[in-house]
């Protein structure tokens, strides 16, 4: 069986705790892309090795980046999610 390719995004988050990051990413993607778009994007936020990253489907990264950029509020507080780098593997993303 062919494994689906993924892309990793390195995120700079302003005023967002690492614990709340996955939920915030999920909310941003669902709100911006809808249920159908979110299912295709397969975006998942996580805090790993001291940084915030998002794993998403290859070919959907621009939609996910735009969804994160349009997220300005989470639980009544202002936040900002900015994509710094994109890579095919987590190791390559953190190596640069």
């Amino acid at each position: 069986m062919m494994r689906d390719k993924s892309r990793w995004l390195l995120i700079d988050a302003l005023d967002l705790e690492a614990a709340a990051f996955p939920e915030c990413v999920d909310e941003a993607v669902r709100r911006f892309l809808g249920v159908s778009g979110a299912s295709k994007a397969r975006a998942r936020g996580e805090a790993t090795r001291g940084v915030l990253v998002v794993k998403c489907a290859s070919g959907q990264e621009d939609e996910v980046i735009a969804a994160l950029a349009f997220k300005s509020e989470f639980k009544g507080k202002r936040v900002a999610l900015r994509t710094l780098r994109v890579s095919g593997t987590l190791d390559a993303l953190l190596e640069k």
Partner: protein
Amino acid sequence: MKGTDNRLGKGLSAKAKRLGFQNAVEREPSERNSKYVKGTDKRTLCSALEKNKDAFANVFQLREYWRDDELHAALKGNCVELCFADYANARDPAKALNKGRSFARKLVKKRIDYRLTSGATDEYALRSPRDLVAFGILLGLTREQSIRALRPLGDAE
């Protein structure tokens, strides 16, 4: 990915550079001697554009800017700002993006120069170069067109 954010609020260029921009220009709409043109009145804006070629114009606040042929004719020889903050803070971002898509298509077709900017007034509104390229793609531009739209003002293609 590098590039220039051609319009930011005061004191934000250092942070913009940390987000990946090679250069960032702090430019206020009210700044004197600047060629930045923005407004809600079409006649005033068009006459300013005719007088002042090489202006940097933001037409987002004009009614029906996306389908106004007279305005598009006046924009020839000037540079248009496609500002992320305008679309993100619009009352209905989906509608604003739809209009923006029609406008971007016209800009490309009529060979009018354009730049993608964050239009940030505070740190929360700052965007990275990747964000602005994704915004350009959302407006229907190609990746190459979006990256080219991050070059400094006055740079010929």
